[in-house]
């Protein structure tokens, strides 16, 4: 059975919400705290439409209190709808398009609310985050590190540690999906129910010789050393 239009729009909304959430954790301006820049306060209807999306993090926090969370959820949906209606009245968007946008927002807001509300059937949990960058980016990092190590006369021990960290990331990325999954399952098992996740390097991982060799080859490949 295919995805319905409504389901599609909900997914669009949830995807946008996820992107917004990721942006919250990346480096953004203001003095000394990486948070988004100050709104210009110009107050156009488009700004009003944007604001409920930006307030989804507020919803995530309010959702931890059921009454307050519900109130914020309702308020944001109403504000989004009101901003859309104003844009429709101004002839800037078609009514049907506005309806789709509202579906997307309501899907996103409900998802955020449900993921954060203290519900027994959807217990919020923060999984371990073993963040690694894309392999090509890591290879470039290794190249630049090598270049800067000589150009800037860096401490060899520091360079070696940074290089090892890069190679560790590349090795992790090179593992087959099932082995990455096995690591994650191992992590979850080690964590138990206490919510304390062990660090990756603390696990007694069994990486097959084939995987280790594949990792080494990939490092060489991406660093251009495979023909040396």
């Amino acid at each position: 059975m295919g995805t319905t239009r409504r389901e599609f729009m909900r997914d669009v909304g949830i995807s946008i919400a996820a992107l917004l959430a990721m942006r919250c954790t990346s480096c953004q301006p203001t003095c000394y705290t990486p948070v988004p820049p100050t709104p210009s306060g110009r107050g156009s209807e488009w700004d009003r439409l944007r604001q409920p999306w930006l307030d989804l993090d507020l919803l995530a926090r309010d959702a931890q209190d059921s009454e307050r969370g519900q109130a914020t959820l309702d308020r944001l949906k109403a504000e989004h709808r009101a901003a859309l209606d104003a844009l429709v009245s101004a002839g800037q968007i078609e009514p049907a398009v506005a309806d789709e946008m509202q579906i997307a927002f309501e899907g996103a807001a409900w998802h955020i609310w449900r993921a954060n509300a203290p519900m027994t059937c959807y217990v919020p949990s923060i999984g371990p985050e073993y963040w690694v960058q894309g392999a090509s980016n890591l290879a470039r990092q290794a190249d630049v590190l090598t270049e800067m190590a000589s150009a800037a006369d860096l401490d060899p021990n520091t360079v070696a540690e940074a290089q090892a960290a890069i190679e560790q990331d590349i090795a992790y990325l090179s593992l087959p999906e099932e082995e990455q999954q096995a690591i994650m399952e191992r992590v979850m098992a080690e964590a138990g129910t206490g919510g304390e996740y062990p660090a990756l390097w603390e696990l007694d991982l069994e990486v097959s010789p084939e995987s280790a060799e594949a990792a080494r080859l990939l490092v060489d490949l991406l660093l251009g050393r495979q023909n040396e």
Partner: protein
Amino acid sequence: MIKPHLSTLIFEVTQACDHACIYCYNTWRHPNVRPDTMERTATLPTDLRPLFTHVLDQVDCSLVTLTGGEPLLRPDLPEIVRFLADRGKRINLITNGHRLTDSLAAELIRAGVTLFELPLLSHHRETHDRLSGAPGAFDAVLAALAHIRTHRGQAVVVFVATRHNIADLYPALKLAFAFGARGVMLNRFNPGGRGAAHIEELLPTVEQMRGALAVAEAATQEFGLPISCSIPIQPCLIDLDDYPHLGRGYCAAGSSRAYYTLDTAGNVRPCNHSPTVLGNVWEEPFADIIAPSRLADFVAAVPPFCVPCARRDECQGGCKAAAQVCYGDLYAEEPFLHLNSPLAHPLPPPPTSNFQPPISNLQLPTSNLQGAQYAKPRTEPTRR
């Protein structure tokens, strides 16, 4: 009662520091900031948990930024981080990294530090160490970045652009990328504290900043490294629209994105650059301290030069805290604008706009926050 919602709160967990950065903005290092306006402690205050509990019970804030001074001088820092993390807070740690050993990095990351903010001022050891006023600072900060990465932590790098190091920006960005920084904050030198004594020596020219921004614009695309200009740059001096891939920020005081700053005695300031003490959390509710009426003068202050400008509400004249510290007046032109004012011109409104400057901001100052600045705060925490 609904708690105030803030993006972040900044806690200065100590005023002590093991560096002597000549660009330092810590207001208590400025001779014009009267000693009794800030907490000064020869020894580190003991348990800060009552203060954290008292404040965080009154505000809805998911991100706490720990700074100083140098927070790693506190031996109980991991305990502080754990305490905050147990309350569900994300934690940024602003540190010079000098004391961030491998084991301490691991401990802090495990305890709950979600982001480290570290200075990287040059690829030249001598330049970085001289600006930091601390031999060994360069090697230490790179080692700290390596430790953080090894333990799967996240770090952003702060490049403070001064006349001494602005030419080193590109190689410094390369170093940041190589060491796995998640982003770079390209902060032009913002005088305050000790740095206020070095304005002409350190403050880059407009032309130098334009060059640095062009370098950063290219580098952010070359390395995929987010770069933001966190200290305000006035659009009448440099149009940041020419650098579309760089983040930018203006003063957030008074908004939910403000970064109110607390010292260990519970004094609250509008930001970590400002010496203005709005109140003390042991004496009145936090919501009262940050009430719009309390901040009205601070928020409304713009230099007379900026009043006719169409972008005044956005730019606010730059960093008014720097104006306050350096020239004793919130309504003064802050140093970057003041020293470059021959190059600046109030920007006209867009041709089709019916721009009307808000009346509240047309009213020139009759007072500033000197009274609030010199209000005597508490010097010792009071537990209730």
